[in-house]
């Protein structure tokens, strides 16, 4: 097993406000290979009709760890992400998260689990509703899981905006009034609303231009330091993956190689 690569923040940032994680900095609780993994994927198979997109993939992610997943387009990275998130039910295999096999749960049973397992998507505009204000979209997971109250709700939204380096004034805007980087930060803020443990980052920076990428990567690193998050970081940008990841998995034709 590879030793964790020390994460050094890049200098460039795209946002006027610097990301300031609110929680006191914790030492990332890197549980060694010996500890219980947070996510354990075994023999995952995803099929679209007769095509097999993911063919027997197995990997673990430990608490506080970032696992990079790289590979050419169409190799099954995003299908793996969708199957881990149970957005596309895998054909076979096991997705064990917090010691619960998600493939055995029905949609209703999955809902509480989903709070702790959140995606960040590639398209910053497409993953937000075009007809709702940013702050309402960030508040939605709170409302959805009954964590909204008139006093604490808006405070939490403000905190999330602050954590992701967004000016609180942007909360009243609509997605089309924001930049791509700002939308991606809003998407991350929404993912963080219910204090998840694992984020599935599916090409989170691919749709952004280079200067914004560093800002988002730094934000992700800061958030990980502050909140002890684990990441599955999917990208075809090997430099970004190296920068962020403790371990790197390479996929080709639906299988992990090396």
């Amino acid at each position, binding site marked *: 097993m590879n030793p964790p690569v020390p994460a050094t923040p890049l200098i460039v940032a795209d946002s006027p406000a610097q990301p300031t994680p609110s929680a006191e900095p914790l030492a990332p609780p890197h549980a060694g290979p010996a500890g219980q993994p947070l996510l354990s994927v075994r023999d995952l198979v995803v099929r679209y009709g007769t095509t097999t997109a993911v063919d027997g993939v197995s990997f673990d992610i430990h608490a506080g760890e970032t696992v990079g997943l790289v590979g050419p387009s169409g190799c099954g990275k995003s299908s793996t992400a969708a199957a881990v998130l149970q957005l596309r039910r895998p054909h076979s295999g096991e997705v064990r998260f917090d010691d619960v096999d998600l493939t055995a749960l029905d949609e209703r049973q999955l809902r509480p*689990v989903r709070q702790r397992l959140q995606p960040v998507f590639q398209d910053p505009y497409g993953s937000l509703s*075009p007809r709702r204000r940013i702050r309402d979209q960030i508040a939605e997971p709170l409302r959805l899981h009954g964590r909204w109250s008139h006093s604490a709700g808006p405070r939490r939204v403000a905190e999330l905006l602050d954590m992701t380096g967004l000016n609180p004034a942007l909360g009243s805007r609509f997605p089309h009034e924001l930049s791509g980087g700002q939308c991606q930060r809003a998407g991350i803020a929404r993912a963080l609303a219910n204090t998840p443990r694992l984020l599935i980052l599916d090409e989170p920076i691919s749709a952004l231009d280079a200067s914004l990428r560093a800002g988002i990567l730094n934000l992700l690193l800061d958030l990980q330091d502050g909140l002890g998050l684990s990441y599955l970081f999917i990208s075809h940008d090997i430099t970004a993956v190296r920068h962020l990841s403790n371990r790197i998995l390479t996929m080709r034709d639906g299988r992990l190689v090396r």
Partner: protein
Amino acid sequence: MRATAARAAALTAVLALTGLLPWLSGTDPALSLLRARSAEQEPTPEALAAIRTDLGLDSGPVALLGRWAAGLLHGDLGVSWVSGTEVLPAVLAGLQVSLTLMGAAAAVALLTGAALAAPAALRGRAGTGTAAAVLAALPEFLLALLLLITVGVWLGGLPTSGWTGPAHLVLPALALGIPAGALLGRLVAEALPAVLEERWVELWQGAGTSRRYVTTAALRRALPPLVPQFAMVAVGLTGGAVAVETVFAVPGLGRTALGAAKSQDLPLLQGAILALLTLGLLAGAVGSAVRRRLLGPALRDASLTLPTARPTPVPTAVPVALGAVLLTTIGWGLLREPYAIHTTARLAAPSAAHPLGTDALGRDVLARLGHGAVPTIGTAAAVCLLAGLVGLLLGFLPDTATGFADVTNALPPVVAGIMVAAVTGPGTGAAALAVTLTAWPPLASHAAALTQEVRASAFLTAQRAMGASPLWILSRHVLPAVAGPVARHAVLRLPGTALALASLGFLGLGAQPPTPEWGLLLNESADYAERAPVAALAPAAALALLAALAVTLAAMTTRRRTTTSQRKSLSLAR
């Protein structure tokens, strides 16, 4: 699969209904037949019973339907009750005429539509203005009458009745094609600006892509949701053909159907309706095939994002002014006596005593217009509300709804009106029923198309990942995205609905005399257009005003709705 089952069920129902027309008919066909065959024969019970036995009306619905279906399979549509000739040749002859007329009308429609959509496509300008909206809302019978009066009677030069040469095609094709083309152009012109504001357009322009290429691509993106409505416009031509053929005395299928319904020649009516239905079904099938072809895998793979449509602002003064004119006229007319007959003042020109003149019986036109607003607009509003709700509900069961809608869509209100009138006899209720039956599918298919596309958009995946239940997604995201446009669409269809009711009235299938319903009013006064032009133009102008009012109102209600919903979400967040 479910759509196919629903389609089969709906088609069977309509066919069975058509086959059972002689049995369902509330008025005794034997009696009207006896009158049609020989005027002097007494309607004795024996004579009527003989006719019933002769037609097989006494053998019960199942046997009747079975015989009709068996004949249908052999290409035998039966024998006309009135003329005693084979139905099939008459239907085929009518079909040939109607298809020629519809082809010419489609060409007119494409030209009109292209001309109206051009400013939006070339300059990205929103909407096509009120004039185009009114043109789109103008019913074929109204345009046909106006053309008949202005070109045919006053200007001369073009034949206004019959079917003996290409010159006879001009006026009917214009009357049928212009409203359809205005609707097409308007739909495209309203869909384009939202698409042209999408980011990829900027990207392509920045990359130096030619304007023509960008416009083509934007059209390609704007068209798929509109294709079902295009198909419906094509179906509308079959209904419009009934009115236009009647006005210009063209021996087409529509006129055949109307004549058959009025003389209770049910075998001929069955044959004509079958042919009209087939035409409509074909148009619908082509429409959905084109839409699937245009959208392709994007619908399946949940990778389609929506262009967020932004309504074109309309100055508040426009609908206020239109409404004020209409309400003043109606209110003024309501204070007057609509049924009083002044035999000394028939077809009088406008004067202090009769501000809009009098009709052929010497009744006050202004009074009749005012009192006619209640049956015309009131019925239409009720029909719209009902159709909007049904459409919204069925839009969420896209498969079932599409199946039923494909069949009901193939029935323009006029054809449905002919069928309902053949069963219940003509009347306001029959007309309202026929229009409701045919008014929901456009709304349902609009709702279904929007639902399908919202469901295919990426942010709903994020919603599912968040743990949102289907009900949450439906009520918070899908419904708000769908209900607004569908409600707007329903309001937009108010003039269309009122005019559909009016066209049934005009054809004698709706409200009956002496009700001053506007379609009936127009029909009654049109005959005297040369002697009393104001009386003829008053109901026409009222219908056009109503169309303009509803269209401009629709734009306003949209704007208001978005601002209140934004305010609400603001206070929630606080």
